[in-house]
């Protein structure tokens, strides 16, 4: 099926496989303020051709503003946006030739599915027969071939989302903008649509800028993620980089779960290998990232921690006591208190039918390797 998508009957701009290259988007010092209120600090960012780029952050972090500026709905207060080398800041939205998918789909309720999809082609003066072929092709791509004559209100949420995708892609834009496109869907449908969107992007070969507040969604879908906070880019990297090498406490706690143990002092160091004191007689063997100075906490991911009576050959080993135990889908999550301190540590282990949950108050030993204990700066 994938192969069929790669070789459509109607020639795309670049025929054959691999599909066309998406646009390169280069933000240079883009800012936005409303009078005294700055919602977007000067932001520079380069998104590569064909990249699936996610922007995440809490509400008010400026992620929607950045997308609005890219789409042309919001005029930036400064800076430029070069798309394939051309500055589009002064171009009105209807001449930017990007595709955009909205959270509530924004399908025109008075048009049929086919008319909705044909709309951007009609605006481009496309001829009737060509229009029909293109609409048919893209309907097949989103597996809604028989639905052209229905009104959007007659479709389910997932189907509407697929029509919105089709409409935003039918004119082969080199850049697709998506603003929380799955925000209105149920959990399970959302997971299904995540795959659909990824498959769709691969077939299309477009660059995607994807705004969401769901970190799991971003981690699952994106090649790279930008985490925004208070109008600035906090960190940019692949999901794995952000998760395993967070550069700030904010990033460490925003993406996934983390135990953050405050550093009281340095007990010793050799290159990137550092021993830090986190309590009376509690020393953690940790790793310092290269070229960074301050170290305010030790970040340990819950799945890096082993928990049992005996832990052979672990860099860090502590006696602890179970504070609570929770079964979640597919895994068990313990909170343990390190003996001789008030420090809480989160531990997550995969569940299996024969695992019996540890009880509250039970004495345990927890351990993790130096490699999994990262020093992270504050703020």
């Amino acid at each position, binding site marked *: 099926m994938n192969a069929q998508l790669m070789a459509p009957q109607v020639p795309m701009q670049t025929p054959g496989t691999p599909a066309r290259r998406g646009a390169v988007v280069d933000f240079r010092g883009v800012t936005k303020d409303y009078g005294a209120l700055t919602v977007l600090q000067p932001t520079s960012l380069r998104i590569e051709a064909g990249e699936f780029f996610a922007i995440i952050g809490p509400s008010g972090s400026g992620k929607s503003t950045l997308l609005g500026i890219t*789409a*042309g*709905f919001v005029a930036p207060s400064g800076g430029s946006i070069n798309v394939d080398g051309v500055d589009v800041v002064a171009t*009105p*939205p*209807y*001449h*930017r*030739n*990007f*595709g*955009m998918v*909205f959270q*509530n789909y*924004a399908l*025109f*309720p*008075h048009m049929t599915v086919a008319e909705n999809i044909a*709309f*951007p082609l009609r*605006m*481009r003066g496309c001829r009737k027969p060509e229009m029909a072929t293109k609409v048919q092709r893209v309907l097949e791509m989103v597996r809604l071939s028989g639905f052209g004559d229905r009104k959007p*209100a007659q479709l389910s949420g997932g189907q509407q989302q697929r029509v919105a995708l089709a*409409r*935003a892609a039918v*004119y082969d834009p080199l850049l697709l*903008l998506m603003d929380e496109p799955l925000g209105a869907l149920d959990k399970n449908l959302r997971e299904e649509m995540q795959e659909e969107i990824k498959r769709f992007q691969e077939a299309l070969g477009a660059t995607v800028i994807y705004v969401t507040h769901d970190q799991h969604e971003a981690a699952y879908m994106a090649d790279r993620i930008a985490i925004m906070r208070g109008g600035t880019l906090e960190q940019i990297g692949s999901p794995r980089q952000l998760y395993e090498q967070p550069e700030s406490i904010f990033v460490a706690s925003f993406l996934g779960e983390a135990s953050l143990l405050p550093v009281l002092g340095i007990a010793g160091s050799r290159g990137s290998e550092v021993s830090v004191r986190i309590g009376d007689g509690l020393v953690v063997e940790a790793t310092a990232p290269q070229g960074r100075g301050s170290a305010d906490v030790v970040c340990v991911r819950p799945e890096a921690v082993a928990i049992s009576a005996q832990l052979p050959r672990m860099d860090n080993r502590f006696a602890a006591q179970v504070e609570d135990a929770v079964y979640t889908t597919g895994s068990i999550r313990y909170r343990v208190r390190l003996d001789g301190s008030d420090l809480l540590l989160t531990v997550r282990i995969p569940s299996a039918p024969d695992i019996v949950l540890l009880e509250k108050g039970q004495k345990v030993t927890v351990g993790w390797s130096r490699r999994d204990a990262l020093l992270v700066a504050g703020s």
Partner: protein
Amino acid sequence: MTASAPWRVADTGILAFAILILIYLVMPTLVIVPLSFSSETFLSFPPPGFSLRWYEAFAESLDYRMAILNSVMIGLPAALLATVFGTLAAIALVRGDIPGRRLLAALMIAPLILPQIILAIGLFPIMVRLGIIGSYPGILFGHAVVCMPLVFITVAASLRSYAPTYELAAMTLGANPWNTFRYVTFPMIRVGVLVGFIFAFTFSFDELILAIFLTSPETRTVPRLLWEHLSYQMTPVIAAATVVLLLITLSLLMLAAVAGRFGPRKAKEAVS
């Protein structure tokens, strides 16, 4: 059952209101309608006998024919003007980013609330001086202004009933402002515009005070003719004319209600 409990209080209120409506709207009708079918020349109630003679007299009256024609010739263009400008004003104020929109919106409603007699007193000398007193354009523009608020209110409500995302979507899809209005905004507010037009026409058709001041015997409308007859003498022809005016008004309002019915509704949320 229990769900609507807190509105029980309100239900009593609506009952009381319905009774008042009955007394003030329906009872007059119950008086006028029998009078219009009276067989006698004097307005006496109950009428002594049944006849259609006053409807015949109404239908044969050149004055009334002229008046109806005038009402339509003033009402249609006035409603059209009100609809065009009222719709544009609603779009600018609801969707646009104009400073002081609250004040402007209040200004839009003003002609509905301001006493028409003030308007009439002020317009009269101006129109006399311009030499358009009693002409079609004079009354037509006057009606356009007082009808505009009705269009503004209904279209603004239509615009507020959906998020502006549709227009943003149209723009990203390549529609310039005019095409966005033509293919997206207008179809979405079509029903509101139609209902506003009907309201505006109805209002112009029924308006009396401006008509008294600004029309001449050649351009006088049905309400003004009715008014003149009332000052002159009370005959059952007036009752017949009133019944006809009432029927026209009710038909127009019914039309508006039917149009509203087939309008786009907010997607009804599923129960669970």
